[in-house]
């Protein structure tokens, strides 16, 4: 009898572990779909890049210090989210939450810079309705920014949960998925940096 009870308890634990792994796999596939989403936006941008209708071109509106700063901030945040994961594997809740706070702060800084970049462009008359090129630019970069913003809200929610429950099978999986998401956005930004900004100012 005693054996049966421990057997069941063990089984329940296995179920949880299995379910959490299943969710991580599902999240990977979600990232595949998100990849396609960005690929479509990139394709649109590349097609419409030259459709400036006599309006401003990339070289005129992209400010090198701005987007370089954005890039470094986002890359650093990806690194700190990695440090958060390391802390999680060591079972260090405080370290984990601490590094998540740093990551979120950097993310917030990135969003702030992006908003001010957009605001400057709009002030110079480079609005989304000026030309097809600018429509594609704002939509592509804006979609990335929207992803980062959603990630920030999500991260704040997870920090509260970590404070409440500590590091468990479930919170571990949640941190794993958000760090996947965060690294993914970082990779997308590398492409944005190259295709939009570098090729734009070249």
């Amino acid at each position, binding site marked *: 009898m005693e054996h049966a009870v421990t057997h*069941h308890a063990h*089984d*329940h634990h296995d*179920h949880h572990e299995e379910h959490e792994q*299943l*969710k991580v*796999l*599902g999240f990977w*596939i*979600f990232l*595949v*779909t*998100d990849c*396609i*989403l960005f690929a*479509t*936006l990139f394709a*649109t941008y590349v*097609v*419409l890049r030259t*459709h*400036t*209708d006599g*309006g401003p071109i990339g070289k005129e509106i992209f400010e090198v210090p701005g987007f370089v700063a954005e890039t470094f901030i986002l890359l650093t945040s990806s690194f700190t989210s990695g440090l958060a994961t390391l802390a999680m594997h060591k079972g260090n809740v405080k370290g984990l939450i601490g590094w998540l706070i740093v990551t979120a702060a950097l993310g917030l800084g990135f969003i702030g810079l992006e908003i001010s970049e957009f605001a400057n462009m709009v002030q110079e008359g480079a609005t*989304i*309705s*000026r*030309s*097809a*090129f600018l*429509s*594609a630019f*704002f*939509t592509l970069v804006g979609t990335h920014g929207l992803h980062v913003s959603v990630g920030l*809200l*999500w991260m704040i*929610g*997870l920090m*509260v*949960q970590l404070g409440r*429950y500590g590091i468990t099978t*479930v919170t571990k999986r*949640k941190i794993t998925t958000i760090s996947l998401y965060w690294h993914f956005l970082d990779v997308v930004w590398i492409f944005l940096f190259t295709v939009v900004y570098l090729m734009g100012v070249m």
Partner: protein
Amino acid sequence: MLESIKEFASTFFVTGDPLIYGADVSIALTSLAILFVLTYYKKWGWLWREWLTTVDHKKIGIMYLIASLLMLFRGGVDALLMRAQLALPGVEFLHAEHYNEIFTTHGTIMIFFMAMPMMFALFNIVVPLQIGARDVAYPFLNAVSFWLFMMGAMLFNISFVIGGSPNAGWLSYPPLSEMSHNPGPGQNFYIWGIQISGIGSLATGINFLVTILKMRAPGMKLMKMPLFSWSVLSSSIMIIFAFPILTVTLALLFIDRYFGAHFFTMTQGGNPMMYVNLIWMWGHPEVYILVIPAFGVFSEIVATFSKKRIFGYKSMVFSMMIISVMSFFTWVHHFFTMGAGADVNAFFAVSTMAIGIPTGVKIFNWLFTMFRGRIQMKTPMLWTIAFVPCFVIGGATGVMLAVAPADYQYHNSYFLIAHFHQVIIGGVVFGYLAGIYYWWPKMFGFSLNEKLGKWAFWFWNIGFYVCFMPQYALGFMGMTRRVYTYGWDLGWAPLNIISSIGALLMGIGFIFQVWQISYSIKHGERDKTGDPWNARTLEWSIPSPAPLYNFAIVPEVKGQDAWWIMKEEMKNGEEPKKAELEPIHMPKNSGIPFIMSVFWFIAGFGFTFTWTWMGVVGLIGVGLCLFARSFQYDTDYYIPVDEVKRTEASLGRVV
């Protein structure tokens, strides 16, 4: 004050057409009747607990099925209205604008809100049972998918009494669908209705891919998996790669309309053909997303009713997977006339013809399965047999259309209309109907009446040929799609009236099906065995309808046609291995999917009427629902062994 309300109402509600007023009255009366019945019989709690909050794949499947049959009715009425208008030259039944709206809603509803949910109904009802699983991988997400679909469909459908229906065709090509040509809310209804349900479809794709890859019963290697589940795998992969493109395309169109951007406009650098390319990069895989599961259905039915193993199992699997890859490389054949040049058109012409090869392989496999089989002519089998010639003709005319230079003649003519109705009705609709007949006893525990089913079948089939064969000829005679009337001098009248009669016959077939279902609910043969067809796959090894947890003991699979093998072993007197019951792990019901989808509806409605405040409120609601779910930790429970034993005993099974 009163004046401004009056003015608002006159633009908010669709006015001026007696048909619409009739629809208003019938919608109001039906809604009141439903409210009355629910209140009178005190069924609100039941509705909430058993259906609105359910995460059970079987119930979600049934809800998909009901919704899709309602949408089939609405789309069918649209079709009959069009055929009434076209029956004779110069009919003054629908004016041009109304006709535009009706062909738009007909196409949109039939693909997005009839075919997709009917397909998801089969996914949900069959796949977990067929692979020996207790639910899908993500039951909560599954409920989210359903309610997103439902709210998207509702949003799209109310357009016909509120605000006005979209009228730019089922794929809503710009510049006609842009603000410059179409400033009303109609196109926004189109965008948001599809966008919301499309997110649900994408999630379903992910859900079933993981379900099939990770939840199969022990022993069921991929190459031992039933072909319907393979077809769902193939379809899910296509969904995962195609639907994000749709999401982006519709979003870009909305950004054009809402923020005044210039993706697809005629001015300031916009490129309408971008839209056409993007939408078909989703749209062509979409037709294979729909038809592959129908192929899966046929494979199950042909084997069951020929009492043979499917012929060429491996080639069936490979051809489905090849189709799922190739379907992404044919999209330009929808607009050879764009003028991309001979080399581009040649590539897409060849790829289009090549995709017919794996399809042909499948046709031969079905025929060889029937060859020397003991064929039973039950309704599911009738639809399967009728599908074969119908789809072959549709495929052949498809190859004709694939010849790029010739397509300059056929493009957008009734020849094309006849072709795609032949593959979509003959392939997709026949397939899903066959599947519904086949799995109906498993869903509800009783069979549908065969006699009424045969009447329905013959009306549908004869009606189909009478309706669409003349349209091939009309295409050659120069009749183009989307014309709302024509003159006597063109000589199209005789064929058009025949075509309209055919549409009517299909309508009668549908009425027979409604009759068949209502008759069988009372008088249909109850399925006590769980295996009314003497079938081959695991879903038939459990009682009908399946208990909440599907399998009391997860089955051990020894080969392809697992249930057939088990039956053979039992016949040979082998005792099935006794396994000990264990508590069963199940997900808890949740109201969040429903509530979140209502917020999506609110958001969609707000953006449709460009009431930004309302859109934002809706989106905030969606966000709060997501947060609420993230903070829920108590999401599952265990069914104790005693309860499983009691349930099984009440179903006449001893464990």
